[in-house]
């Protein structure tokens, strides 16, 4: 197994992400969607739907999933996997809250 170095970066207070919503974090060319659920759990996914690259950050967040705005695939926030009959997976990133600040592992 490759040992990769992870870096925790701060992306600011949890309160700047809307509940049941998301914000985007730009990391070079990549856009990462950081989601906050109604119970203040947070998740990070690459902002790219496994179907046709739809911006998941723009979808409706519900019950630990997000529904893609383009063609309504439902993606698990925890695993990045498409739900139901659809097949595909989006990259997930580790993320945590410390003292109200959100830290993202890149």
């Amino acid at each position, binding site marked *: 197994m490759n040992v990769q170095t992870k*870096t925790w970066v701060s992306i600011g207070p949890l309160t700047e992400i809307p509940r049941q919503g998301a914000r985007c974090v730009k990391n070079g060319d990549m856009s990462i969607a950081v989601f906050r659920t109604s119970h203040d759990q947070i998740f990070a996914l690459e902002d790219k739907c496994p179907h046709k690259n739809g911006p998941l950050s723009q979808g409706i967040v519900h019950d630990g999933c997000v529904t893609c*705005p383009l063609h309504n695939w439902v993606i698990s926030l925890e695993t990045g996997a498409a739900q139901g009959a659809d097949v595909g997976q989006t990259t997930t990133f580790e993320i945590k809250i410390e003292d109200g600040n959100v830290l993202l592992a890149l």
Partner: protein
Amino acid sequence: MSKKHLVIVGNGMAPGRMLEHLFEVTDAYDVTIFNAEPRVNYDRIMLSPVLSGEKTYADIIIHGEGWYEEHGITLHQGEKITEIHRNERKVVSETGREVAYDKLVIATGSNPFIIPLPGHDLPGVLAYRDLDDTGAMIEASDKGGRAVVIGGGLLGLEAAAGLKQRGMEVTVIHLMPTLMERQLDTAAGYLLQKELEGRGIEVLCEANTKQILGQDRVEGVELADGRVIDASLVVMAVGIRPNVQVAQEAGLEVNRGIVTDATMKTSDPNIYSVGECVEVGGLVYGLVAPLYRMAKVAADHLAGASEMAFAHAETPTKLKVTGCDLYSVGDFAEGDGREDIVLRDAMRGTYKRVILKDNKIIGAVLYGDVADGGWYNELLKSGEDISEMRETLIFGQAYQGGAGADPLAAVANLSDDAEICGCNGITKGTIVTAIQAKGLTSLTEVRAHTKASASCGTCTGLVENVMALTLGDAFQLPASEGMCPCTTHSHGHVRRLIKAKGLKSIPAVMQALEWTTPEGCAKCRPALNYYLVADWPGEYVDDQQSRFINERVHANIQKDGTYSVVPRMFGGITTPDELRAIADVADKYEIPTVKVTGGQRIDLLGVKKEDLIPVWADLNAAGMISGAAYAKGLRTVKTCVGSDWCRFGTQDSTGLGIKLEHYLWGAWTPAKLKLAVSGCPRNCAESTCKDIGIVCVDSGYEVLYGGAAGLHIQGTTKLGTVPTEDDVIEVVGALTQYYRETGFYLERIYKWADRLGYDHIREVILDDLEQRKAYNARFAHAQSFAQVDPWAEFVGGKDAHEFNPINIRKLEAAE
């Protein structure tokens, strides 16, 4: 043979029920009733819906004047009995009236307990016991301000919720650490508190009231810790005491209540007692179910020799506050030899706990998910050994073998005295008997005859199941397809219940209508958000997170994640200045495509999300607002040139189109709404395939609707011809509002009209002038809140987070 004389002191729920039983079996008595309250017998437990405004006094009368006449009862309303002379067998009332009895029934109920705090007798300090209290609270709430409710038990919380619904600020002061501690354990009490706080009711637990402040009337409450809470109304709901005074003075045996044996006879063989004033088997009761059993026993013994005896049984508690689903029955204290099975779902905020002893259920506390309450209570009453199903017990009846997940089988398994309708205490047996005896076949009839599901309506599904079981093939379950996999309720049900129950937020709808998912899905959330927007204009706060991205950012998302922006062009008319501004915006933000749309305006395609706000700011500055090309709402009003230029034009179609668009823009509708106005029947604006189309003719304006030219092609149907532009505007406003109020989400106007019927819609909107005006007035009212340009709001700084990415702030420790 002359009849014996039965006198009753008190005319509450218990003796009312007793008389019903008595008249079923005998007419041996002439009956006289004295009631201190100046009214007939009404359903005291429904005072809370009266307080909240969901019912009126007329709705909750149990026995109207006619009933007393029919049974030859003499009812002295507003006349209290002050003495009982047992030796002479007569009662004396406060007016000095004397009436002799052969048998006497004391049913004086209880008195609300008032803590004798300083200030407790100030005007504005109320108890919560009878209709007068309720009326006084309603009157006080009209003046607004803050109400303090002392006591966080069943009554106090119902009062608090009702007053809140009446628009008051409300604070509940409760001595104990958790609410309803006698019925709920700590976990459920906590969930309840959160729920109430979520509705804006302030809850102070472990708070002790020191005194009530005020000069001529109540002005506030001071707590023991020195806090002062301003209040224009104080409701004391700290408990009740059996009303034993007359019985005690007559020398009857009285302990906590009037002591009776299991036949409801007091220490005097000619005197019975029923209701909350009674102590039987060492216990006093405060819920109607046991009182009704007392009533039956007493009636049976009054009728003649009887074996019937009162026996204790646990009564479940429910709280009649819409959206607070809790259920508690039996004993839930911790204790030796007791075991708990608990299921919590933090996401859903539900909590279930079943308490076992010797493999039998002795208690249950449910919060949030109460569907299995009745089933646990059945197991508790029957004392069944549950070891076989222990593993799955907590998941509820649906998970047990046998009954399976089939709701009909589950209902079939319920005993006849299982309660189906909690509000009205209607059992399965009562419904079945009524269906069979009276030949009922529809839900409406069952409601009318049994009252089952006639109040809050949550048990409608259960009642339908009972009907299906009883009627077999004769009953067609109304086809009601759930609006999405999160619920079994159809769109129609949901719309009706939102109004009936006054549900004003998405969580409230989900809680009250028992959504099976915690937060709904991308299908139901936008629908619920629309229903709430349409039903509570000015009150409901639009939930942006429940809107599809296009409606959240007021632009259309494109396949590459960029957006398209369409400014409104009222009636398809533009100016050189507007065109110049559009051109400038396209240059400045390097917008790749500028296209004329099929809706007579211009689309800027390929705008980057970060550029949306500046693009709008520039368009706003040139006087343009969002064209809502993304909205389940008003899109365009297309026009032709009309009488201004065209040699065939009969009326000013362009001008009317502009007026209509000015009136309608900003309105949210179940699906998109497109209009067109053509100047003559040549129909150059394509009015005959629009949701609403106007065709101008010499004599006036033909109003057409129900057209479509998308996935489905359908010509419009004529609503009627009206003479003036003002009539057109009124009719279109009314039609739109009727559609807004009754349409299902994503149901275009032609589908809606197919469902409701074109004749029916014409009768309501065109023929009935009064209704037309009422619908149009409601539309205008809603528009006063809806006509806010979303672009300007965003330019002004609203929801800035939508548009800007977060920056990485600093690097933390490497791992």
